[in-house]
């Protein structure tokens, strides 16, 4: 065997050497065919050069040919003529695009690629996309070139820059060109300084890593680069603070949603409702059911199923709340510790009911199209669903405040909490107001469930994750005070998010809990205690 292989290798090597010499001509197309005929390092090199040349040649057929090579559809015959196989199996001439009806499968061999060639193809396709008619594609391509910052792309970038009309794409191409220039060994100092300035203006993490690679060297370019790194760091730090604030507000709005209902049942009525989390969970399941029903019966309105789920969740959780108040809680007024135990029992029962009805697994609740996606604000990525939840949380709290302040029911609720006997003497049916107040708090919890179904797993345990946090928010903010609850939720969210990069997510939560425990020791009535005689219970 070995005796046979050695001469065979010799033949291949000789052929390859010949192939490389023959392909040393300028014509990229000839270069491309090398690996179809012989397989050797030299032939692959030749193909790679061919791809690179073709990419910057500006040839209108370049994209088709390189695309065909990428898809394994590029073939060559023994005369180095290239053909592209069409989806129907026929061939066209690669250079002209003219049909070649007399070429058959037997006449041609596939142009082979190795990893180096594949890399070149990807780079080439990226460069070619710089000339695409769609501006998003061009933007994408410019970003890809920026990431690869391959000096070989410089001619193409120059050409693309001259043609570009869209200012955003133009800026991106300039940045890509600057990145490539910095990697080019033979660029002039003026060019490099200009490139540093361009990257400095870009001011993100990618630009920083490119510049910091330069900053270690000596010379004016390096000095400019290290100055730019400092300036970018400052900008990045501001964005990272802004990001922490945004994530904090986002977490705070989730806490606020979970706690808003509790601010009514616990804050206003003084009922320790440990089943509050389960009201949230029921709201999330209502969302699931509404989506399933809409999917089955009203597919045309599926997009707004969340909007329909909001009032439905309010009604379902609210009605359950009224039923719970009438059957359980009204027997336990004035016995807070017993209420706590009974409602904990209730929460176990509700969880098990939902588990029996829907199963223990997570249920999928879809995010509608208008809630997915993100908005780029400078260095911040604002996802739409988080934005909507923040907005929704504030709407819910505003609606709740308005309901308490401006509706007749709200008036009666306030009257009953302030002075039950006097309210009763004025003809208010206090037991019903109790039931409705509890229903309102539970209904708001249900609404929270609709929002949480978008960011959390809809499972029977959904509510348990929020119950301790919600109580903490209400106690922290000051019982019976919706403003306090709002501010408390946002403070906790932001503090948590600022601690996270320092301490890690779990430790941050522990630190926040410990801080809260200490805070409650100092201020047992929260940030905004109610003044007056009713406080000292």
């Amino acid at each position, binding site marked *: 065997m070995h005796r046979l292989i050695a001469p065979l290798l010799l033949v291949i090597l000789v052929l390859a050497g010949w192939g490389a010499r023959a392909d040393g001509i300028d014509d990229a197309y000839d270069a491309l065919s090398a690996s179809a005929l012989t397989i050797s390092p030299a032939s692959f090199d030749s193909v790679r050069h061919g791809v690179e040349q073709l990419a910057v040649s500006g040839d209108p057929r370049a994209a088709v040919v390189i695309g065909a090579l990428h898809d394994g559809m590029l073939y060559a015959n023994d005369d180095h003529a290239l053909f592209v196989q069409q989806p129907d199996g026929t061939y066209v001439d690669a250079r002209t695009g003219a049909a070649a009806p007399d070429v058959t499968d037997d006449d041609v061999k596939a142009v082979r690629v190795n990893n180096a060639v594949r890399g070149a193809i990807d780079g080439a396709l990226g460069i070619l996309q710089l000339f695409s008619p769609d501006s998003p594609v061009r933007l994408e391509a410019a970003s890809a070139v920026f990431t690869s910052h391959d000096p070989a792309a410089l001619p193409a970038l120059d050409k693309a820059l001259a043609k570009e009309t869209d200012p955003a794409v133009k800026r991106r191409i300039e940045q890509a060109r600057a990145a490539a220039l910095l990697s080019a060994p033979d660029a002039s100092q003026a060019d490099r300084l200009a490139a540093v300035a361009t990257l400095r203006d870009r001011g993100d993490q990618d630009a920083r890593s490119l510049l910091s690679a330069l900053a270690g060297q000596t010379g004016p370019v390096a000095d400019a680069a290290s100055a730019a790194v400092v300036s970018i760091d400052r900008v990045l730090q501001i964005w990272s603070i802004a990001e922490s604030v945004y994530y904090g507000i986002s977490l705070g709005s989730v806490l606020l949603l979970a706690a808003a209902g509790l601010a009514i049942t616990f804050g206003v009525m*003084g009922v*320790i409702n440990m089943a509050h989390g389960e009201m949230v969970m029921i709201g999330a399941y209502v969302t699931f059911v509404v989506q399933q029903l809409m999917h089955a019966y009203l597919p045309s309105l599926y997009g707004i199923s969340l909007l329909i789920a909001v009032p439905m969740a309010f009604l379902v959780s609210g009605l359950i709340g009224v039923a719970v108040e009438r059957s*359980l809680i009204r*027997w*336990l*007024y*004035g*016995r*807070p*510790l*017993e*209420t*706590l*135990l*009974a409602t*904990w*029992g*209730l*929460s*176990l*029962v509700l*969880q*098990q009911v939902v*588990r*029996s009805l829907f199963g223990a697994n997570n249920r999928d609740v879809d995010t509608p199209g208008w809630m997915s996606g993100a908005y780029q604000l400078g260095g911040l990525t604002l996802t739409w669903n988080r934005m909507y939840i923040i907005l929704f949380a504030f709407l819910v709290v505003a609606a709740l405040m308005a309901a308490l302040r401006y509706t007749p029911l709200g008036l009666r609720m306030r009257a009953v909490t302030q*002075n*039950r*006997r006097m309210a009763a003497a004025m003809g208010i049916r206090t037991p019903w107001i109790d039931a409705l107040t509890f229903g309102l708090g539970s209904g708001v919890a249900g609404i929270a469930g609709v929002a949480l179904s978008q960011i959390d797993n809809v499972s029977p345990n959904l509510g348990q994750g929020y119950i*301790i946090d919600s*109580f*903490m928010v209400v*106690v922290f903010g000051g019982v019976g005070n919706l403003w306090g609850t709002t501010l408390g939720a946002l403070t906790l969210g932001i503090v948590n998010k600022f601690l996270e990069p320092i301490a890690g997510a*779990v*430790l941050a*939560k*522990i630190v926040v*809990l*410990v801080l*809260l*425990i*200490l805070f*409650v*020791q*100092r201020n*047992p009535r929260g940030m905004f205690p109610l003044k007056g005689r*009713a406080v*000292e*219970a």
Partner: protein
Amino acid sequence: MKLDRTSSITIVAVIGLSLILAFLNQMTDVASAAHVPTYVIALAGKYLCFAMLALAVDLVWGFAGILSLGHAAFFALGGYAMGMYLMRQIGTRGVYGNAMLPDFMVFLGWKELPWYWHGFEWFGFAMLMAVLVPATLAGVFGWLAFRSRVTGVYLSIITQALTYALLLAFFRNDMGFGGNNGLTDFKDIVGFNVQADSTRSALLVISALLLCAQFLLARFVVDSRFGKILIAVRDTESRTRFLGYRPESYKLVVWILSAVMAGIGGALYVPQVGIINPSEFAPGNSIEAVIWVAVGGRGTLVGAILGAILVNFGKTWFTGALPEIWLYALGAMFIFVTLFLPRGVMGLFRARQAKEPEPEAPAVAAAHEVTG
């Protein structure tokens, strides 16, 4: 100290039944009808440890009016102290055969034993820690809470936050307590094989003896002058303060005592179940301990022991026979007991004895006064 009849019956029953179970396990043939299998011994031992936790909860809730929703934290801390001792006893018999480091530390690539693990190779030190660590935590927490007059529901909620924070902390691998998996795979306790039937029986009897000792101690505390003031604090804290007592000091002492009792329960629990992991800190566990007391009868001590054993027996039976039903049953029990049986099972027994004080009555009146 003179014992009433119920207390004497309880002590005789707990010790007697444990001895009988241990005897039937050790002295009878496996095939014989009278033989008690070892899993029953372990189960009974577990119930007795839970009874210690219930006793601890009853001492603070029933007599000082502090509803702790985080008592399982003290229980688990005691358990971890025992678990650390048992881990060090494994020695080179672990999967990785490291004489110094427990398996999970080798797995995490740790090179040295963390400083807080030193000393736990000695049984005495570990047991001291099983008492001291819960006592210290309770001391710091209680000192802060009672001094600033955090009472009632607020206190309940922050005790819950405390155990929740510990739960999260012990889940972390970096803490050096085995993270999610906790401590397990124990081999020896003071030279005896943890898995052996004889060790199990001995542990059961020891649990029974310690439970009775704790019961007597609690009985002594609540019957003393100190206990009378505690009850006064429970019923009307402000009035007691106006009479010149310092409620926070009384509460702090009984709170620390209760944490120590829970810690001892936890330390005995671990060798009998063979594992300790962070889920013992789950807030649900602490609340379950409260329901044992509520079922048995709050403020009776005997009721706490009875309730812990009854509810846990029910749980074992339900989760075996009708697992779907268990949460319904537990939840319904919470609701039923609070609505219809405010004095628990012991309330049924003692309905005839009029001398029994009404645990909640004055506080209820005061609360009505305020809420109008």
